[in-house]
Protein backbone atom coordinates (compact mmCIF):
# COMPACT_ATOMS: atom_id res chain seq x y z
CA UNK A 1 0.00 0.00 0.00
CA UNK A 2 1.28 3.42 -0.93
CA UNK A 3 1.98 5.73 1.97
CA UNK A 4 2.06 9.49 1.54
CA UNK A 5 3.79 12.40 3.24
CA UNK A 6 3.26 16.10 2.82
CA UNK A 7 5.92 17.70 0.62
CA UNK A 8 6.45 21.11 -0.94
CA UNK A 9 6.29 22.01 -4.63
CA UNK A 10 8.71 24.64 -5.93
CA UNK A 11 7.14 24.81 -9.39
CA UNK A 12 6.01 28.41 -8.86
CA UNK A 13 6.08 31.17 -6.29
CA UNK A 14 3.05 29.87 -4.36
CA UNK A 15 5.31 27.12 -2.94
CA UNK A 16 2.39 24.79 -2.15
CA UNK A 17 3.09 22.79 1.01
CA UNK A 18 0.20 20.35 0.70
CA UNK A 19 1.61 17.99 -1.92
CA UNK A 20 0.95 14.39 -0.91
CA UNK A 21 4.01 12.55 -2.11
CA UNK A 22 4.46 8.77 -1.99
CA UNK A 23 7.06 7.44 0.43
CA UNK A 24 10.27 6.27 -1.20
CA UNK A 25 9.80 2.68 -2.29
CA UNK A 26 6.02 2.67 -1.93
CA UNK A 27 4.99 4.60 -5.01
CA UNK A 28 6.02 6.74 -7.93
CA UNK A 29 6.07 10.48 -8.58
CA UNK A 30 3.06 10.13 -10.88
CA UNK A 31 0.99 9.21 -7.81
CA UNK A 32 1.67 12.54 -6.12
CA UNK A 33 -1.55 14.33 -5.21
CA UNK A 34 -2.61 17.99 -5.17
CA UNK A 35 -0.14 18.98 -7.87
CA UNK A 36 -1.39 21.45 -10.46
CA UNK A 37 -0.45 20.99 -14.11
CA UNK A 38 2.63 23.14 -13.60
CA UNK A 39 3.64 21.27 -10.47
CA UNK A 40 3.19 17.95 -12.25
CA UNK A 41 5.53 19.10 -15.03
CA UNK A 42 7.98 20.37 -12.43
CA UNK A 43 8.13 16.94 -10.77
CA UNK A 44 8.37 15.10 -14.10
CA UNK A 45 11.42 17.23 -14.89
CA UNK A 46 13.28 15.11 -12.36
CA UNK A 47 13.57 12.41 -14.99
CA UNK A 48 14.48 14.20 -18.21
CA UNK A 49 17.45 16.09 -19.64
CA UNK A 50 19.63 15.88 -16.50
CA UNK A 51 23.11 17.34 -16.85
CA UNK A 52 26.54 15.92 -16.11
CA UNK A 53 29.79 17.79 -15.40
CA UNK A 54 31.27 19.29 -18.58
CA UNK A 55 34.23 21.50 -19.43
CA UNK A 56 34.36 22.86 -23.00
CA UNK A 57 31.77 20.23 -23.98
CA UNK A 58 33.83 17.28 -22.71
CA UNK A 59 32.76 15.05 -19.85
CA UNK A 60 34.89 15.57 -16.74
CA UNK A 61 34.63 14.74 -13.06
CA UNK A 62 32.60 17.01 -10.78
CA UNK A 63 35.83 18.06 -9.03
CA UNK A 64 37.39 19.08 -12.35
CA UNK A 65 34.31 21.11 -13.34
CA UNK A 66 34.30 22.94 -10.00
CA UNK A 67 38.06 23.58 -10.22
CA UNK A 68 37.72 24.99 -13.74
CA UNK A 69 34.82 27.20 -12.63
CA UNK A 70 36.89 28.54 -9.76
CA UNK A 71 39.81 29.22 -12.11
CA UNK A 72 37.63 31.22 -14.53
CA UNK A 73 36.11 33.28 -11.71
CA UNK A 74 39.48 33.77 -9.98
CA UNK A 75 40.94 35.28 -13.16
CA UNK A 76 37.91 37.41 -14.04
CA UNK A 77 38.08 41.17 -13.65
CA UNK A 78 34.38 41.80 -14.44
CA UNK A 79 32.41 38.75 -13.27
CA UNK A 80 28.63 38.54 -13.29
CA UNK A 81 26.45 36.20 -11.25
CA UNK A 82 22.97 35.90 -12.73
CA UNK A 83 19.83 33.90 -11.95
CA UNK A 84 19.16 33.15 -8.27
CA UNK A 85 15.37 32.92 -8.32
CA UNK A 86 15.13 29.12 -8.49
CA UNK A 87 17.53 28.71 -5.56
CA UNK A 88 16.90 28.44 -1.83
CA UNK A 89 17.68 31.36 0.47
CA UNK A 90 20.61 29.32 1.77
CA UNK A 91 22.11 29.10 -1.74
CA UNK A 92 21.41 32.78 -2.37
CA UNK A 93 23.27 33.73 0.82
CA UNK A 94 26.34 31.72 -0.16
CA UNK A 95 26.10 33.12 -3.71
CA UNK A 96 26.03 36.71 -2.45
CA UNK A 97 29.05 35.98 -0.25
CA UNK A 98 30.82 34.68 -3.36
CA UNK A 99 29.77 37.80 -5.29
CA UNK A 100 31.20 40.02 -2.55
CA UNK A 101 34.42 37.98 -2.51
CA UNK A 102 35.07 38.30 -6.25
CA UNK A 103 33.52 41.77 -6.78
CA UNK A 104 30.74 40.56 -9.08
CA UNK A 105 27.73 42.27 -10.60
CA UNK A 106 24.58 40.39 -9.58
CA UNK A 107 21.09 40.39 -11.08
CA UNK A 108 18.05 38.18 -11.47
CA UNK A 109 15.31 37.81 -14.11
CA UNK A 110 12.64 39.45 -11.97
CA UNK A 111 14.44 42.77 -11.79
CA UNK A 112 13.18 43.92 -15.19
CA UNK A 113 9.55 43.21 -14.41
CA UNK A 114 8.91 43.33 -10.73
CA UNK A 115 11.89 45.31 -9.52
CA UNK A 116 10.20 48.70 -9.19
CA UNK A 117 7.11 47.23 -7.54
CA UNK A 118 9.13 45.02 -5.20
CA UNK A 119 11.31 47.93 -4.10
CA UNK A 120 8.18 49.92 -3.18
CA UNK A 121 6.62 47.00 -1.33
CA UNK A 122 9.78 46.15 0.62
CA UNK A 123 10.29 49.78 1.58
CA UNK A 124 6.64 50.09 2.70
CA UNK A 125 5.61 52.67 0.09
CA UNK A 126 2.95 50.33 -1.29
CA UNK A 127 0.78 48.41 1.22
CA UNK A 128 0.91 44.65 0.92
CA UNK A 129 -0.51 41.64 2.73
CA UNK A 130 -0.15 37.87 2.77
CA UNK A 131 -2.09 35.47 0.59
CA UNK A 132 -3.59 34.06 3.78
CA UNK A 133 -5.08 37.52 4.39
CA UNK A 134 -6.41 37.40 0.84
CA UNK A 135 -8.08 34.04 1.50
CA UNK A 136 -9.58 35.17 4.80
CA UNK A 137 -10.62 38.75 4.06
CA UNK A 138 -10.46 39.80 0.40
CA UNK A 139 -13.72 40.38 -1.44
CA UNK A 140 -12.22 41.97 -4.56
CA UNK A 141 -9.19 40.64 -6.42
CA UNK A 142 -7.89 42.60 -9.39
CA UNK A 143 -5.54 40.72 -11.72
CA UNK A 144 -4.00 43.60 -13.63
CA UNK A 145 -1.79 42.29 -16.43
CA UNK A 146 -1.47 38.98 -14.63
CA UNK A 147 -2.95 35.57 -15.41
CA UNK A 148 -2.70 33.27 -12.40
CA UNK A 149 -4.43 30.39 -14.21
CA UNK A 150 -1.31 30.15 -16.37
CA UNK A 151 1.45 31.24 -14.02
CA UNK A 152 0.35 30.36 -10.46
CA UNK A 153 -2.34 27.79 -11.22
CA UNK A 154 -3.58 27.27 -7.63
CA UNK A 155 -3.74 30.99 -6.81
CA UNK A 156 -7.48 31.21 -7.42
CA UNK A 157 -8.35 27.96 -5.63
CA UNK A 158 -6.07 28.35 -2.61
CA UNK A 159 -6.29 32.09 -1.99
CA UNK A 160 -8.00 34.62 -4.19
CA UNK A 161 -11.33 33.44 -5.60
CA UNK A 162 -12.69 30.01 -4.75
CA UNK A 163 -11.78 29.30 -1.10
CA UNK A 164 -14.03 29.90 1.86
CA UNK A 165 -12.01 32.19 4.09
CA UNK A 166 -12.56 33.32 7.66
CA UNK A 167 -14.66 36.32 6.61
CA UNK A 168 -15.56 34.99 3.19
CA UNK A 169 -17.58 31.86 3.79
CA UNK A 170 -19.81 32.52 0.77
CA UNK A 171 -16.73 32.79 -1.39
CA UNK A 172 -16.97 33.33 -5.15
CA UNK A 173 -20.69 32.53 -5.28
CA UNK A 174 -21.61 35.69 -3.40
CA UNK A 175 -18.73 37.37 -1.64
CA UNK A 176 -15.75 37.52 -3.96
CA UNK A 177 -15.39 39.51 -7.17
CA UNK A 178 -12.64 38.72 -9.62
CA UNK A 179 -11.58 41.50 -11.99
CA UNK A 180 -9.15 41.00 -14.87
CA UNK A 181 -7.37 43.75 -16.76
CA UNK A 182 -5.62 42.32 -19.80
CA UNK A 183 -4.86 42.82 -23.46
CA UNK A 184 -6.27 39.42 -24.38
CA UNK A 185 -8.87 36.95 -23.18
CA UNK A 186 -6.57 35.03 -20.83
CA UNK A 187 -7.64 31.81 -19.11
CA UNK A 188 -8.28 33.85 -15.95
CA UNK A 189 -10.34 36.38 -17.90
CA UNK A 190 -12.64 33.57 -19.05
CA UNK A 191 -13.71 33.13 -15.43
CA UNK A 192 -15.12 36.63 -15.23
CA UNK A 193 -16.13 37.95 -18.68
CA UNK A 194 -18.38 40.65 -17.21
CA UNK A 195 -15.56 42.11 -15.12
CA UNK A 196 -12.76 41.83 -17.66
CA UNK A 197 -11.32 45.12 -18.89
CA UNK A 198 -9.41 45.21 -22.17
CA UNK A 199 -6.36 47.46 -22.08
CA UNK A 200 -4.00 47.63 -25.04
CA UNK A 201 -0.21 47.67 -24.52
CA UNK A 202 0.79 51.07 -23.19
CA UNK A 203 -2.75 52.08 -22.14
CA UNK A 204 -2.43 51.13 -18.48
CA UNK A 205 -1.82 54.71 -17.35
CA UNK A 206 -5.01 55.85 -19.09
CA UNK A 207 -6.89 53.01 -17.38
CA UNK A 208 -5.39 54.01 -14.02
CA UNK A 209 -6.39 57.66 -14.54
CA UNK A 210 -9.89 56.54 -15.52
CA UNK A 211 -10.22 54.69 -12.18
CA UNK A 212 -9.11 57.80 -10.32
CA UNK A 213 -11.66 59.84 -12.29
CA UNK A 214 -14.63 57.58 -11.51
CA UNK A 215 -13.63 57.50 -7.84
CA UNK A 216 -13.89 61.32 -7.92
CA UNK A 217 -17.34 61.04 -9.51
CA UNK A 218 -16.08 62.27 -12.88
CA UNK A 219 -16.82 60.81 -16.32
CA UNK A 220 -13.80 58.71 -17.37
CA UNK A 221 -12.03 59.67 -20.59
CA UNK A 222 -10.88 56.12 -21.31
CA UNK A 223 -12.59 52.87 -22.20
CA UNK A 224 -16.24 51.89 -21.98
CA UNK A 225 -17.60 54.62 -19.69
CA UNK A 226 -20.43 52.45 -18.31
CA UNK A 227 -18.05 49.63 -17.47
CA UNK A 228 -15.55 52.01 -15.89
CA UNK A 229 -18.29 53.51 -13.70
CA UNK A 230 -19.31 49.96 -12.71
CA UNK A 231 -15.69 49.30 -11.74
CA UNK A 232 -15.76 52.41 -9.58
CA UNK A 233 -18.93 51.09 -7.88
CA UNK A 234 -17.31 47.69 -7.21
CA UNK A 235 -14.28 49.40 -5.68
CA UNK A 236 -16.41 51.65 -3.46
CA UNK A 237 -18.34 48.63 -2.15
CA UNK A 238 -15.14 46.66 -1.53
CA UNK A 239 -14.25 45.89 2.08
CA UNK A 240 -10.82 44.42 1.42
CA UNK A 241 -9.36 44.65 -2.07
CA UNK A 242 -6.13 43.31 -3.49
CA UNK A 243 -4.35 44.13 -6.73
CA UNK A 244 -2.12 41.47 -8.28
CA UNK A 245 0.03 43.29 -10.85
CA UNK A 246 1.55 41.23 -13.65
CA UNK A 247 4.28 41.91 -16.19
CA UNK A 248 1.94 43.52 -18.75
CA UNK A 249 0.97 46.20 -16.25
CA UNK A 250 4.39 46.64 -14.65
CA UNK A 251 6.19 47.12 -17.96
CA UNK A 252 3.50 49.49 -19.17
CA UNK A 253 3.67 51.59 -15.99
CA UNK A 254 7.42 51.33 -15.46
CA UNK A 255 7.93 55.11 -15.62
CA UNK A 256 4.66 55.93 -13.87
CA UNK A 257 4.83 53.88 -10.69
CA UNK A 258 4.28 57.11 -8.73
CA UNK A 259 0.77 57.22 -10.23
CA UNK A 260 0.21 53.64 -9.09
CA UNK A 261 1.27 54.70 -5.60
CA UNK A 262 -1.21 57.58 -5.86
CA UNK A 263 -3.96 55.15 -6.90
CA UNK A 264 -3.24 53.00 -3.83
CA UNK A 265 -3.29 56.06 -1.59
CA UNK A 266 -6.68 57.08 -3.01
CA UNK A 267 -8.12 53.56 -2.77
CA UNK A 268 -7.06 53.36 0.86
CA UNK A 269 -8.87 56.60 1.61
CA UNK A 270 -12.06 54.83 0.53
CA UNK A 271 -11.48 51.31 1.83
CA UNK A 272 -8.66 48.80 2.35
CA UNK A 273 -6.58 47.92 -0.70
CA UNK A 274 -3.32 45.95 -0.80
CA UNK A 275 -0.90 44.82 -3.50
CA UNK A 276 0.56 41.32 -3.70
CA UNK A 277 3.25 40.72 -6.35
CA UNK A 278 3.05 37.79 -8.78
CA UNK A 279 6.68 36.73 -8.90
CA UNK A 280 7.75 34.20 -11.51
CA UNK A 281 10.19 31.66 -10.10
CA UNK A 282 9.63 30.13 -6.71
CA UNK A 283 12.14 32.18 -4.72
CA UNK A 284 12.31 35.47 -6.63
CA UNK A 285 10.88 37.19 -3.59
CA UNK A 286 13.55 35.63 -1.38
CA UNK A 287 16.35 36.95 -3.55
CA UNK A 288 14.80 40.44 -3.68
CA UNK A 289 14.38 40.49 0.09
CA UNK A 290 17.90 39.22 0.72
CA UNK A 291 19.49 41.73 -1.63
CA UNK A 292 17.31 44.53 -0.25
CA UNK A 293 18.28 43.70 3.34
CA UNK A 294 21.95 43.55 2.35
CA UNK A 295 22.20 46.53 -0.01
CA UNK A 296 18.94 48.52 0.05
CA UNK A 297 18.33 47.58 -3.58
CA UNK A 298 16.42 44.80 -5.33
CA UNK A 299 17.86 45.22 -8.81
CA UNK A 300 21.35 44.86 -10.27
CA UNK A 301 24.09 45.43 -7.70
CA UNK A 302 27.84 45.57 -8.26
CA UNK A 303 30.07 44.52 -5.40
CA UNK A 304 33.42 46.25 -5.13
CA UNK A 305 36.69 44.39 -4.56
CA UNK A 306 36.26 45.09 -0.84
CA UNK A 307 32.82 43.46 -0.88
CA UNK A 308 30.79 46.67 -0.62
CA UNK A 309 27.70 47.16 -2.80
CA UNK A 310 28.13 50.02 -5.26
CA UNK A 311 26.29 51.80 -8.07
CA UNK A 312 25.74 49.24 -10.77
CA UNK A 313 25.63 49.42 -14.55
CA UNK A 314 22.56 48.03 -16.32
CA UNK A 315 22.38 44.28 -16.93
CA UNK A 316 22.99 44.93 -20.64
CA UNK A 317 26.20 46.89 -19.92
CA UNK A 318 27.38 44.47 -17.23
CA UNK A 319 26.95 41.41 -19.45
CA UNK A 320 28.58 43.10 -22.47
CA UNK A 321 31.64 43.83 -20.35
CA UNK A 322 31.70 40.51 -18.49
CA UNK A 323 34.69 38.19 -18.71
CA UNK A 324 32.96 35.44 -16.71
CA UNK A 325 29.30 34.75 -15.96
CA UNK A 326 28.11 32.33 -13.32
CA UNK A 327 24.49 31.34 -13.96
CA UNK A 328 22.42 29.50 -11.39
CA UNK A 329 18.68 28.97 -11.00
CA UNK A 330 17.89 30.45 -14.40
CA UNK A 331 18.21 30.04 -18.17
CA UNK A 332 18.94 33.53 -19.54
CA UNK A 333 19.44 32.30 -23.10
CA UNK A 334 15.89 30.97 -23.01
CA UNK A 335 14.33 34.08 -21.51
CA UNK A 336 16.23 37.13 -22.69
CA UNK A 337 16.05 38.97 -26.02
CA UNK A 338 18.44 38.15 -28.83
CA UNK A 339 21.04 40.88 -28.27
CA UNK A 340 21.39 40.30 -24.57
CA UNK A 341 21.29 36.51 -24.94
CA UNK A 342 24.12 36.82 -27.49
CA UNK A 343 26.14 38.87 -25.03
CA UNK A 344 25.67 36.10 -22.47
CA UNK A 345 26.71 33.47 -25.03
CA UNK A 346 29.84 35.44 -25.95
CA UNK A 347 31.16 35.36 -22.37
CA UNK A 348 32.64 32.33 -20.62
CA UNK A 349 29.59 30.91 -18.85
CA UNK A 350 29.64 28.62 -15.86
CA UNK A 351 26.20 27.01 -15.59
CA UNK A 352 25.11 25.40 -12.35
CA UNK A 353 22.10 23.60 -13.72
CA UNK A 354 20.29 20.38 -12.86
CA UNK A 355 18.87 20.05 -16.38
CA UNK A 356 19.91 20.74 -19.93
CA UNK A 357 19.14 24.34 -20.84
CA UNK A 358 20.08 26.71 -23.67
CA UNK A 359 22.53 28.36 -21.29
CA UNK A 360 24.08 25.00 -20.37
CA UNK A 361 24.31 24.21 -24.10
CA UNK A 362 26.70 27.15 -24.68
CA UNK A 363 28.45 27.11 -21.28
CA UNK A 364 32.20 26.58 -20.90
CA UNK A 365 31.58 24.73 -17.68
CA UNK A 366 28.45 22.82 -16.64
CA UNK A 367 28.09 21.77 -13.02
CA UNK A 368 25.12 19.47 -12.38
CA UNK A 369 23.08 20.18 -9.28
CA UNK A 370 20.14 18.80 -7.38
CA UNK A 371 16.78 20.29 -8.32
CA UNK A 372 16.16 22.94 -5.74
CA UNK A 373 13.18 22.13 -3.59
CA UNK A 374 12.59 18.67 -5.04
CA UNK A 375 15.92 17.03 -4.27
CA UNK A 376 17.17 19.49 -1.66
CA UNK A 377 15.49 21.11 1.29
CA UNK A 378 15.86 24.69 2.39
CA UNK A 379 14.01 27.94 2.86
CA UNK A 380 12.30 30.30 0.46
CA UNK A 381 9.95 33.28 0.49
CA UNK A 382 6.58 32.82 -1.14
CA UNK A 383 5.46 35.54 -3.57
CA UNK A 384 3.79 37.38 -0.65
CA UNK A 385 6.93 37.21 1.50
CA UNK A 386 5.84 34.34 3.78
CA UNK A 387 8.84 32.21 4.75
CA UNK A 388 8.51 28.52 3.85
CA UNK A 389 10.90 25.82 5.03
CA UNK A 390 10.79 22.51 3.22
CA UNK A 391 12.30 19.06 3.08
CA UNK A 392 13.28 17.42 -0.22
CA UNK A 393 10.71 15.18 -1.91
CA UNK A 394 13.34 12.84 -3.34
CA UNK A 395 16.81 11.70 -2.38
CA UNK A 396 19.72 12.45 -4.70
CA UNK A 397 23.48 12.13 -4.93
CA UNK A 398 23.74 15.51 -6.64
CA UNK A 399 25.12 18.46 -4.70
CA UNK A 400 22.84 21.31 -3.68
CA UNK A 401 23.50 24.78 -5.14
CA UNK A 402 24.94 26.08 -1.87
CA UNK A 403 27.32 23.12 -1.61
CA UNK A 404 28.60 23.80 -5.13
CA UNK A 405 28.95 27.52 -4.45
CA UNK A 406 30.79 26.83 -1.20
CA UNK A 407 33.23 24.52 -2.99
CA UNK A 408 33.82 27.12 -5.73
CA UNK A 409 34.44 29.77 -3.08
CA UNK A 410 36.88 27.50 -1.22
CA UNK A 411 38.72 26.74 -4.47
CA UNK A 412 39.01 30.46 -5.26
Amino acid at each position, binding site marked *: MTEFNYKTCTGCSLICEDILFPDAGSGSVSQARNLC*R*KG*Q*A*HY*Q*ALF*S*ERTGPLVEGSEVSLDQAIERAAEILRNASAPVIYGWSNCTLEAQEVGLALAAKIGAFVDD*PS*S*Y*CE*GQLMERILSGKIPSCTLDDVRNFADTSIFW*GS*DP*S*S*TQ*PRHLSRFSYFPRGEKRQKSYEEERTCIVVD*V*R*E*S*PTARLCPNTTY*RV*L*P*GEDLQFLEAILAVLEGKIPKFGDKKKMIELGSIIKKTEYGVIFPG*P*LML*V*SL*QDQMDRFEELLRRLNEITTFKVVPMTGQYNSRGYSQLLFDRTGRVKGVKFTASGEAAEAP*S*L*VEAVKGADAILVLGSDP*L*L*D*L*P*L*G*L*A*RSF*AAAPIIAIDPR*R*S*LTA*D*VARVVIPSAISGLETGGTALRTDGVRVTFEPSMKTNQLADEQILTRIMEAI
Partner: protein
Amino acid sequence: MAVDVKVVTYRDIFQYGAEKMGLHSEEYLRLSASIILDKGDMASLGIAEGGKVLLENELNRIVVNATASADKPHPGLAFMIKSPWSNQLEGDESCPAGASGFKGIQAQVSPSSEGITQMDEILQRLRA
Protein backbone atom coordinates in the same frame (compact mmCIF):
# COMPACT_ATOMS: atom_id res chain seq x y z
CA MET B 1 1.49 41.13 -49.06
CA ALA B 2 2.49 41.93 -45.48
CA VAL B 3 0.72 43.28 -42.43
CA ASP B 4 2.27 45.33 -39.62
CA VAL B 5 1.55 43.84 -36.23
CA LYS B 6 2.38 44.51 -32.63
CA VAL B 7 3.25 41.17 -31.03
CA VAL B 8 2.45 40.86 -27.32
CA THR B 9 3.96 37.90 -25.46
CA TYR B 10 2.40 35.95 -22.64
CA ARG B 11 3.04 32.87 -20.46
CA ASP B 12 1.35 29.55 -21.11
CA ILE B 13 1.01 26.60 -18.75
CA PHE B 14 1.11 23.99 -21.52
CA GLN B 15 4.35 25.39 -22.93
CA TYR B 16 5.80 25.28 -19.39
CA GLY B 17 4.99 21.56 -19.32
CA ALA B 18 6.57 21.04 -22.74
CA GLU B 19 9.68 22.93 -21.59
CA LYS B 20 10.05 20.55 -18.66
CA MET B 21 9.89 17.59 -21.03
CA GLY B 22 12.70 19.11 -23.10
CA LEU B 23 13.52 22.34 -24.89
CA HIS B 24 14.29 20.40 -28.05
CA SER B 25 10.99 18.51 -27.99
CA GLU B 26 8.42 18.66 -30.81
CA GLU B 27 5.78 19.89 -28.38
CA TYR B 28 7.92 22.80 -27.20
CA LEU B 29 8.58 23.76 -30.83
CA ARG B 30 4.88 23.48 -31.72
CA LEU B 31 3.79 25.76 -28.90
CA SER B 32 6.63 28.28 -29.15
CA ALA B 33 7.01 28.69 -32.93
CA SER B 34 3.45 29.88 -33.24
CA ILE B 35 1.59 33.17 -33.48
CA ILE B 36 -2.05 34.03 -32.88
CA LEU B 37 -3.31 36.51 -35.47
CA ASP B 38 -6.56 38.40 -35.82
CA LYS B 39 -8.97 36.57 -38.16
CA GLY B 40 -9.19 39.62 -40.44
CA ASP B 41 -5.41 39.85 -40.67
CA MET B 42 -5.27 36.13 -41.51
CA ALA B 43 -7.82 36.65 -44.27
CA SER B 44 -6.10 39.68 -45.77
CA LEU B 45 -2.81 37.75 -45.82
CA GLY B 46 -4.53 34.72 -47.36
CA ILE B 47 -3.26 32.43 -44.61
CA ALA B 48 -5.14 29.32 -43.60
CA GLU B 49 -5.23 27.97 -40.04
CA GLY B 50 -1.79 26.54 -39.22
CA GLY B 51 -0.19 28.17 -42.26
CA LYS B 52 3.40 29.36 -42.13
CA VAL B 53 4.21 33.04 -41.77
CA LEU B 54 7.41 35.02 -41.81
CA LEU B 55 7.76 37.46 -38.95
CA GLU B 56 10.45 40.05 -39.37
CA ASN B 57 11.65 43.36 -38.06
CA GLU B 58 14.92 45.29 -38.05
CA LEU B 59 16.42 42.80 -35.60
CA ASN B 60 15.65 39.40 -37.05
CA ARG B 61 13.31 37.07 -38.91
CA ILE B 62 11.56 33.88 -37.89
CA VAL B 63 9.10 31.51 -39.56
CA VAL B 64 6.28 30.24 -37.36
CA ASN B 65 2.80 28.72 -37.68
CA ALA B 66 -0.21 31.05 -37.59
CA THR B 67 -3.40 30.40 -35.66
CA ALA B 68 -6.59 32.43 -35.93
CA SER B 69 -7.59 34.19 -32.73
CA ALA B 70 -10.81 33.10 -31.03
CA ASP B 71 -10.87 36.43 -29.22
CA LYS B 72 -12.79 39.60 -30.15
CA PRO B 73 -11.34 41.30 -33.28
CA HIS B 74 -7.90 42.81 -32.68
CA PRO B 75 -6.47 43.83 -36.08
CA GLY B 76 -2.78 44.67 -35.97
CA LEU B 77 -2.36 42.96 -32.62
CA ALA B 78 -0.85 39.46 -32.41
CA PHE B 79 0.04 37.16 -29.53
CA MET B 80 2.96 34.79 -28.99
CA ILE B 81 3.91 32.65 -26.02
CA LYS B 82 7.17 34.07 -24.69
CA SER B 83 10.00 31.87 -25.92
CA PRO B 84 13.35 31.98 -27.74
CA TRP B 85 11.31 32.50 -30.95
CA SER B 86 9.63 35.71 -29.76
CA ASN B 87 12.93 36.76 -28.18
CA GLN B 88 14.49 36.75 -31.66
CA LEU B 89 12.49 39.86 -32.52
CA GLU B 90 12.90 41.59 -29.19
CA GLY B 91 15.28 44.46 -28.59
CA ASP B 92 17.05 44.95 -25.31
CA GLU B 93 17.71 48.68 -25.45
CA SER B 94 14.29 50.30 -25.74
CA CYS B 95 13.00 49.14 -22.37
CA PRO B 96 14.31 46.96 -19.55
CA ALA B 97 15.91 43.82 -20.91
CA GLY B 98 13.46 41.08 -21.69
CA ALA B 99 10.42 43.18 -21.00
CA SER B 100 9.60 44.67 -24.38
CA GLY B 101 7.67 41.56 -25.44
CA PHE B 102 5.06 42.30 -22.82
CA LYS B 103 4.71 45.81 -24.21
CA GLY B 104 4.56 44.76 -27.83
CA ILE B 105 7.14 43.96 -30.50
CA GLN B 106 6.71 45.72 -33.83
CA ALA B 107 7.04 43.30 -36.76
CA GLN B 108 5.79 42.59 -40.25
CA VAL B 109 3.98 39.36 -40.95
CA SER B 110 3.66 37.76 -44.39
CA PRO B 111 2.91 34.30 -45.82
CA SER B 112 5.98 32.06 -46.08
CA SER B 113 6.97 28.84 -47.82
CA GLU B 114 10.17 28.50 -45.76
CA GLY B 115 10.56 25.88 -43.03
CA ILE B 116 9.66 26.68 -39.43
CA THR B 117 12.64 28.18 -37.58
CA GLN B 118 14.16 25.38 -35.53
CA MET B 119 15.74 25.48 -32.07
CA ASP B 120 19.15 24.52 -33.50
CA GLU B 121 19.04 27.58 -35.76
CA ILE B 122 18.20 29.77 -32.79
CA LEU B 123 21.13 28.33 -30.87
CA GLN B 124 23.40 29.09 -33.84
CA ARG B 125 22.15 32.69 -33.90
CA LEU B 126 22.85 33.00 -30.18
CA ARG B 127 26.37 31.72 -30.67
CA ALA B 128 27.02 34.03 -33.67
